[in-house]
Structure formats: C-alpha cells, structure tokens
C-alpha cells in the first residue's frame, strides 16, 4: 500500500524459472531456523487437530459424570482436565482447532481469490478502470468493518461457514492493493509485452503470467491473514457470537476459560497454549517467508 513492491525476478514464463525461484526461496527459508521450526510445529498441530479427537479416550460431547471441572489426570484419561460440563478438554481443544483452523482457511481463501483477481484486473487494465476499482477499495476501507461483522453475525448467526466467507469477502482489500501494485510493475516488463505482441489473450496473460508472479508477497500476506482471522473468531466468541454448541473452537474455549482463570486454570491455559503457539508460528513463518522471497533483504 505504501511502497510498491518491485517484482522479485525476471521470469520468462511461469514454469522452469518459477521452479527455481520457489526452490531458491525454499532453500533460504530452510536457513531460517525460527521459520522452519514454526512450519514443523504448525504441521504437528494440524495433524494433532485432525487425528487427535479420534485418539483421545473421550468423545467430543461425552460427559464424564464423575469429573466436572476436573484438573488434568492421566488415570481418568483427561490429560488436560475437563470443562464445567464434564467433557474432556483435550478432545474439545483439538476439535476446536479443526474449526478454528478451517474457519481461518476458508476466510483467507475467499479473501485470496477475490483480492488476487480484483487486484490483478485493476492493475492490468489500468487507467480509468483501475482508478474506479481502487476508489471502491478506498470506500470499503472506510467501513467500520468490525461493526458490520457483528451485524452479520447477528443476522446469519447459525451458519459459520457463510459468516467466515463473508469475513473473507471483506478481508480482501489489502490483498487487492498488493496484487495491483505488483501487477502494475510487472505488466511493463518484457515478458508480458512479448506475450501481448504474440497475441495472447488478456485473460491468459493475467492468469498465466501476472498472477503467478505476484505469489511471493501474496503468500506472505496469507500467513498474516490466517492469524488475523483466528483472532477475529475468538473476539466474536467473546461477544457470544462464535460457533454454536456442540461445536467448539479455540475462541469459544478460551472465552469459557477466561472466567475460570483462578479456579480452573487449565480451562484457560490449554486452549490458549494451542492458539498462542499457532499464532506465533504463523507470524514467524510469515516473517521468514518475507525474508526468503524478498530479494532486497538478501
């Protein structure tokens, strides 16, 4: 939005050079210990969230009538304690991770698709179209976004996927600006002009040449959007507008736990730890990717 990022390489077409670009970035990412470790941890958390609920001895909504708000115990199989309804906290946390992560991915994906297409089209068309499209983005920026999200939740409360698709539909603004900036710079380069001269269709140029070459900053931005959406989800949970029983999410679990921080600290600590580690890892990964993909920081 402020500095228009310059394209990172001089690829001639998307393929062979693109691979070496990716390979180069990967190599540099691997040198960044914080980022690789984060990537590893994220993978671990994702696997645990997907597989975990089947492996824990208790079911998601199974009530242990003998253990309400019970502290962690190996003997009972409540490795992270139980919640105030006697349900196994570890199972719920892992399951909540599925919801939190998929919600974040859905929202990010929606913002990615809209933002990249919108930005690429604006940048490629240029001139009056670009001007008009960017004016619209400016207007969207002035919306009291959070208030609209709360209103959306009040209206469509029960359908979470719809809601997060809607959040994604508002989160695309930054993305579109980044992609537009990239595209503006790219389209003056030789390989795009060459494609033009060869009579390649505009849509093909945008999808085959321009968008692949904006991927670097976009990937960085994605790693930053995912934590943003996860936090947003927890914020909505705090307001009582989060996902509904019997489903759960990290945000819901944390906002249940925060009231018990003194009497049943595990209820706050367990889901918070998962959330915090995930967010930290995503942020480190994002920083690492930025460094790896940006030639200026070499």
């Amino acid at each position, binding site marked *: 939005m402020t500095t228009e990022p310059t394209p990172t390489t001089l690829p001639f077409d998307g393929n062979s050079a693109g691979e070496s670009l990716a390979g180069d970035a990967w190599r540099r990412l691997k040198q960044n210990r914080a980022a690789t470790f984060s990537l590893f941890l994220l993978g671990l958390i994702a696997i645990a969230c997907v597989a975990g609920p089947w492996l824990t001895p208790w079911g998601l909504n199974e009530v242990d009538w003998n253990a309400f708000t019970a502290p962690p115990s190996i003997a009972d199989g409540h490795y992270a304690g139980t919640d105030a309804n006697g349900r196994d906290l570890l199972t719920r946390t892992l399951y909540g991770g599925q919801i939190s992560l998929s919600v974040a991915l859905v929202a990010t994906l929606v913002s990615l698709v809209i933002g990249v297409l919108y930005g690429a089209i604006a940048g490629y068309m240029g001139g009056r179209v670009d001007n008009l499209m960017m004016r619209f983005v400016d207007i969207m920026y002035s919306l*009291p976004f959070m*208030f609209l999200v709360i209103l959306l939740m*009040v209206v469509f409360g029960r359908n979470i996927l719809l809601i997060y698709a809607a959040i994604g539909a508002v989160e695309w603004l930054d993305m579109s600006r980044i992609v537009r900036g990239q595209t503006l710079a790219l389209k003056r380069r030789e390989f795009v002009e060459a494609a033009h001269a060869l009579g390649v269709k505009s849509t093909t140029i945008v999808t085959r040449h321009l968008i692949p070459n904006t991927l670097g900053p976009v990937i960085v931005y994605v790693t930053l959007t995912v934590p943003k959406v996860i936090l947003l989800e927890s*914020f909505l949970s705090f*307001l009582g507008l989060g996902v509904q029983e019997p489903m759960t999410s990290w*945000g819901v679990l944390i906002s249940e736990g925060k009231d018990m921080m003194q009497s049943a600290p595990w209820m706050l600590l367990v889901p918070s730890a998962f959330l915090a580690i995930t967010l930290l890892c995503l942020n480190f990964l994002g920083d690492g990717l930025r460094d790896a993909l940006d030639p200026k920081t070499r």
Partner: protein
Amino acid sequence: MLYYVGKRLLQAIPTLLIVITVSFFLMHMAPGGPFDGERQLPAEIEANLLATYHLDQPVWKQYLLYMGNLLQGDFGPSFRYKDFTVTELIMQGFPVSLELGLWAIGLALLIGLPMGIVAAIRRNSTVDYMVMGTALAGVAVPNFVIAPLLALVFGVLLAWLPVGGWNDGHWRNMVLPVVALSIQQIAYIARMMRASMIEVLGSQYIRTARAKGLAEYEVIWGHALRPALLPVVSYLGPAIAGIITGSVVIEQIFGIPGIGRYFVQGALNRDYTLVMGTVVFYGALIVLINLIVDLLYSALDPQIRYDH
C-alpha cells in the same frame, strides 16, 4: 491542500451512504425486534410502541424517514435507554472512548517504534529475537484474556490499581485498560517498524550515506528513520480501527462507559437507532482519521504533494 481536503470530504458522502444503507438493512433483517423480551407485551401496547417509533411502516419508508432525520442531525431516541437520546449517549460515550483510544495508540507508538528500530538494527541477534518474541506474545493472546489477567494481577492480587470503572477518567482507572488495549498494537507496530527499517537500511542511498562515512546513529536518525516511518504512518488508520474494535472488549471487561459497548448492546437488544447512530458516527470518524493519516503521510513523504 484545501482543495484536496474538500474533495476527500465530498468523496466521504458515498462512503457514508453505503455504510448507513448496509447497516440499516442488516439491522432490520436481524431476527427479533426491539420490543421482544422475556415477557410478552399486550398486543395493543406493542402496536402502540411500534407506531410511536414508525416500526409498523414498510422498511423502505423507515429508511427514508431515518435518512430524513439524519440529515437534520437527529439520531432519534434510543429504544432501550429511554431516558436518553442516541445523540446524548454518543456524546457521553465518545469522549471516554477517544481518551482511551488516544492514550492507547500513543503508548503503542511510544513502545512499538523503538522496539522495531532496535530489532532492525540488531537484526537476527539475540536482542532482535527477544524484542520480537515479546512483541509477538502480544498478538498471540486475545485481549479478552489479557484484560482480565491484568485486572486479576494488578487490581485484585497486588491491589495497585482499580479493577474497573471510569471514575471520570482518573489516571489510575485508565492504566490497565490502556495497557490492555495497546498490547496488540505494540506488536503490530514493532513488526512493521522492524520490517520497514530493514528495508530502508538495505536501500541504495543508505549504503551511500554509510559509504560517506557517516556515524551509525546519524545514518539512522538522519536518513533512515523518516522513510522507514512511512508504512507505520499509513498503518495508523487500520491501527485506530483496531483500537476501536478492541475497545468493545476492554470497555466491557473494565466497565468503562465508552461507545463500543453501546454498539454491541444495541445490536443484541435490536436497539436500531442506537446501532445506526454508533455506526454512522464511527463511519464518519474513520473517514476523518484516514484523511488525517493521508495528510500526515504527505508531510513525511516529499514525493507526494496534494496541491496539484
């Protein structure tokens, strides 16, 4: 300059129009109405109430009516808080939210900028990792956890500061909410500052400055700081929006009579006029803030002139 400001303010009109329209119809789409409650009102009374507030009319008529009143600066009565008008409620709550928000953003800049600069200069050193790790901890925990934690530790257990309440803005009552509100922004600002500082330090003209043999602090203060600040300045708009959002949580937890609570309660109570009032007010505020931020940006960046 004046021409530019005027143009921007004119452009704000369609923005606000969209804001008002979207939130008006969203609010009226929400299930339930302002007079639905635990106990059923007699049909006659409910009809009477609906007629008083014109809620028995078709929605498009209500919309026109609302816009008409709005043009005259009338936000209408609150459905829920019967002793106050919406304008009065906003005028009571806004100074509180503003004071809280300004302190929070001030604190975020005061701490976030130096953290980012230090981390950038000592890039990839232990200092960098420690500073950024601390900053990141702020984004890793939701502020609705941080706030009660602060209240518990500093208010209840140590009893250094009040746990809640506003007390007409006494500084002691403000410390915890301001800290809780700024923690997330400190993290964002520190990271942004670090990234942009690194970028500037790697640029050609800093290398030139170094080559000329300038002292390191001179390079940083004299040459690098100003351009490195630009992304942070342009982030101030979103940052303030973030603070407003956060204040919804903070105001609720610390019992502060700000405007954010009105919005959430209005939305939950279907207090249409109160919700609309806060949305319009904040819409206008964000437009204004964005304008100020852009002007500030132009003051810092010599390449941008708005006169022509």
